[in-house]
């Protein structure tokens, strides 16, 4: 009976002196690895329009069906999205959309601090997506 008790206390003692695995979050911030998948980003063409060509492949491949796209065409025949929304409340950050994109228009950043007071505020619109994430 004594033996397991000492063993258990030993584990506790070990962790008392081992370096901490947690961080003091608001003061300290975790730096994710570059390959980490968090908030999406829409890359831009040279003229500042989104690079997306509205092929719907991301919306098709998306397993949580959280991407909604409405496309238009300019007078030269180039297609671009008028509306491109990702519902981050439903997104599972699998990165399939990035993989499916034939023109490398959509990417994922390491910005993981995603929050909002309402469900609607978690919907990522086109303009917001084209700005680099804050912070």
């Amino acid at each position: 009976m004594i033996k397991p008790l000492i063993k258990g206390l030993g584990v506790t003692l070990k962790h008392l002196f081992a370096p901490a695995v947690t961080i003091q979050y608001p003061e300290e911030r975790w730096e994710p690895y570059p390959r980490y998948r968090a908030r999406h980003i829409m890359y831009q063409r040279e003229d500042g329009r989104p690079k997306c060509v509205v092929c719907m492949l991301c919306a098709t491949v998306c397993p949580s069906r959280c991407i909604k796209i409405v496309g238009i065409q300019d007078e030269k025949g180039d297609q671009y999205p008028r509306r491109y929304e990702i519902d981050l409340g439903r997104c599972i950050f699998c990165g399939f959309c990035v993989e499916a994109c034939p023109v490398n228009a959509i990417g994922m950043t390491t910005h993981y601090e995603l929050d909002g007071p309402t469900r609607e505020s978690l919907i990522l619109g086109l303009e917001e997506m084209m700005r680099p994430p804050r912070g």
Partner: protein
Amino acid sequence: MPRLTIDGQVIEVPPGTKVIDAAEALGIVIPRLCYHPALGPAGACRLCAVSFLDGPVKGVLMSCSIEARDGMVVSTEHPEAVSFRKQVIEWLMMNHPHDCPVCDEGGHCLLQEVTVASGHCRRRYPGPKRTFVDQDLGPFVQQEMNRCIHCWRCRRFYQDYAGYRDFGALGIGWRTYFGRATSGVLESPFSGNLVDICPTGALTDKPSRFMARRWDVERAPSLCIHCSLGCNVTVSAHLREIVQVEARYNGDVNGHFICDRGRYGFDYANHPLRPRSPAVMGEETSWSKAIAQAVAGIEEVTRAHGPKAIGVVSSERASLEAMVTLSLLCEETGWEGPAFFQDEETLVKNRLLAQVALSHGIAGLREVEKADLILIVGTDPICEAPLLALAIRQAWRRGAWVGALDPRPIELPLTFEQSGLWDEELKKALLKGAQREEGLEEVLPGWKEALDRSREIVVILGPTVVDISSLRRCGEFVSKLGKKARIFPVFRGPNSLAASALSRESTFRSLARKIREGKIKALLLVEADPFHGTKMRGELEASIRSLELTIVIDYLPSEVVKRAHILIPSATIYEGGGSFINQEGRLQRASPVHRGGIPLRRNLQGNLRPPRTFAKGPPGETAKSSWQVLLELGERIGKGLGIEDKEDIWKVARERFPFLWQVEPGGRISWEGGGVQEEAMEEEEDPSQSSQEMRVLLVTSTFAGEELSQYSSKLDPVRNEARAFFNEEVASQRGLRRGDRIWIRMGDVRVPFSVKTSPKVPSKLLILDPGNEGLWREVREVSKTIGWTEIERA
């Protein structure tokens, strides 16, 4: 019967079958881009190459151009053939842009399919790609010539099959350009088929552009209900919106194609003003309240005036389920009706036409295609049943002789004889034609010769222009022609044949008379708009206003819906499905495509997302078809029919209306007409006795005038203006020329018309096509005759 071996399987096919079709019969689909069963082989794409190992021909050859013959041994998987096909795809892709992600065809593209299947992924040739300048081909077809692979399907359909000349092939060799001489709207009312048959994204559907990928949409087999032919279509819905209608192959009815009215007339289902929720006195309310109000209203009227004080009106566009339920309900309750037709004349004409056609052998589109003598009596195929014109053209291409007896200047994509006979003259001509040896030779030169060498005769007969006695005369005339003659009836609505079979004596006019006499106090309108195409608007408005209760069950934002006391929305054919009997008596069923509801695109305007509220169904869903609403009403007033679902309707109706239900869906009904009394109609006096007056004939055109497609915004760009057709001589005497603008006074409204002249129009006749309505809606009454004093230049 040639027997041949394809990939080790032996098959026997009728002589003349192409090897590609023989293989398809075995379930082996040889890739093809230019071959189309309706258009035949062109040998342009070289993709259907197979190896002929033994038999009359040997080597790698095109299976679409070679007829199956005895002793052929064909291998589709021979390494030589496979490598041939692979290289064909490589050079087809040499000039094809690699833009599948932005191409609207991506996902249902034949070229994409074969390219992926062949494994081609890298272009070896480093030179530039061939490019073209695109044209604007109007509101329906989007051209992107860079994607063209020169299969010639579009030209072969447009010029050879459909017979229009404004779109074709220009240039030679690899610079061949498929388009018009200059940008402009395609003239053919069948232009939408170009989208269906184009194997790449060179010609794509403009109205549904960028809306959805093929795998995103909800699709179901459905029916086109924009005329009486009952063409088969596939309907796509996306985000609660109908986005596209395509032709669905049915060898017995429409074949591979449909007309543009059927293809782009679907938009009434997405109409922004479509009734979506029940309303009482114009105020939206819940389903239960609206039904309760309706029941209370009906019971009150019944208590005060008896069941005969309730009139029931439906129309030719109601589904068979609705018609049957309504008929049973009227029998059960003793309500007046149901009335399916505007007036007695239309009812008798429709019945008579059904009777005449069914007793002489009714013809469908396939019989028209096989005929070698076609006589059109009182029908304008392009306007009333557009696909019929294509069928007539196919017969004409095989050498058939076509003649028309119609006062309208008919336009058909073929050469034919026309005589503008009408009324008395038509009757006389038919009588003479039936009596004398040379028949109609006097009015239609070439008739006698064509009749002598004909084996299959089809008489196309419509009830709109000809009067009752001419219809009957026509029946006699056809029986004189002998057993080889059949009648192809052209009705007005998709379910007219069923309506004339189920109709009692009531018509809307007779009910209106009873309303004026005070016998009818309440009206139940089921998918009917009496204001559509009426000549008696003023009278109609007065009688509807004098009613104590108007209950409307409908899905259109029609005029009567606006005047309804109680409005109950119903489901369209896309949401509820339904059965329809087409002009040849073929019973066909449509499946529901989607659940319906307010289209999400409309919700997205302004708001970022649809409102997050909790409900069982999608917002604006009209879950019930009209027959379901009727059953519920019947149950609530204590006259339940013991029907719960569609199958029950079939069961009950089979017992009650056996003539309609002897067949399984897809087959033809056999019904001897019946119920047409010989003395049914008193023939009216010819009112145009004085030489100054002209008889008025109201007609409709392809894209304007049909009830459902009238609400489709997709067709707005091609709707014609109001036109008035005069006899050429009469018009020139009065100094009117083609294209002049005139005002015609009708009551206190002046309606603008554009003048059209034709030598075919009888001199005492004025043909009016209201076109896309407009001021027409204010005309309170269209008189039977119009004098020159009422016509003035604009």
